[in-house]
């Protein structure tokens, strides 16, 4: 979470020590991420339920997704997690240049992910696989295939939204990074951002097999 700064000191007035401040920030960020787990959890629950009710429709609909793009994006995102971790490390050891470079790399990889996602979405529009009035699906159970696409767009859309927010924050962090805003003593904001970014990666680690890899062996 954000650091409560007060005056020139980077120890907020209501904390007694840096340690207390750091522990509060870490715990706060984790608690926030737990709410995110449950936020996505509602969609995962709906997904699991409908998939278990209509396995065939889900399999058919899933086969229209491009597994290569999905895998590529997974790799991109994992790479961005690595760079993000290194950016945080840069803060820990007080190397602003490292932090800056790694944040930039993370930003680039995150944007790549979003670009690939945009290509995939465009393809869905093209094939009328977007739920709604224009939806069209060749297959025995189009209704429930549509349900799959609802969940596909719901889950990846929410994930992408998190990515966009993350990218925006990263962009805003570049200048402070160069200025050396994060020191070994207090890099709570950087650390918090790292946690957020890794969390978004985690969600994708689950989304990828759940959405793209259903019954591929058929």
């Amino acid at each position: 979470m954000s650091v409560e700064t007060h005056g020139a000191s980077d120890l907020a007035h209501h904390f007694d020590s840096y340690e207390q401040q750091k522990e509060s920030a870490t715990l706060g960020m984790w608690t926030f991420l737990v709410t995110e787990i449950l936020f996505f959890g509602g969609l995962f629950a709906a997904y699991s339920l409908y998939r278990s009710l209509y396995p065939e429709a889900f399999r058919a609909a899933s086969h229209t997704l491009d597994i290569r793009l999905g895998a590529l994006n997974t790799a991109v995102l994992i790479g961005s997690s690595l760079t993000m971790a290194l950016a945080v490390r840069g803060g820990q050891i007080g190397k602003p240049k490292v932090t800056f470079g790694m944040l930039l790399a993370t930003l680039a990889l995150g944007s790549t992910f979003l670009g690939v996602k945009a290509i995939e979405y465009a393809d869905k529009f093209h094939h009328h696989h977007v739920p709604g009035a224009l939806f069209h699906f060749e297959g025995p159970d189009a209704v429930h295939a549509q349900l799959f696409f609802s969940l596909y767009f719901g889950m990846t859309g929410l994930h992408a939204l998190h990515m966009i927010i993350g990218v925006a924050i990263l962009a805003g962090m570049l200048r402070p990074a160069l200025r050396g805003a994060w020191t070994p003593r207090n890099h709570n904001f950087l650390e918090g951002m790292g946690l957020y970014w890794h969390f978004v990666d985690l969600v994708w680690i689950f989304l990828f097999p759940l959405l793209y890899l259903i019954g591929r062996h058929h």
Partner: protein
Amino acid sequence: MTHTQNSAAPAPHVMPVSTYLLVFLALMCGTALTVAAAYVDLGWANNAVALAIAIAKSTLVVLYFMHVKENTRLIPAVIFSGLFMLLILFVNLLADYGTRGWLGVEGR
């Protein structure tokens, strides 16, 4: 809960870069493995394998990238409380949808 030392900064635990690289490699291998496993017919186990790999991958991310390995025990407790609630959501949904029709009365 005493916080007396006012200026002493906590020395951050710094993991070596090599650790991060190893984790990264493991995650990439995991991804390749999931894709490969999806093309092998394992019956019901396909889902289980995919999930198991995803869980293993996320454990790595949580422990190393997210530094939980070095944090206080409280953090895992927080994470598990969230996962526990998620589990409750799934299990109780299953309790409903999984037992529909057992009575042989429609709508029950």
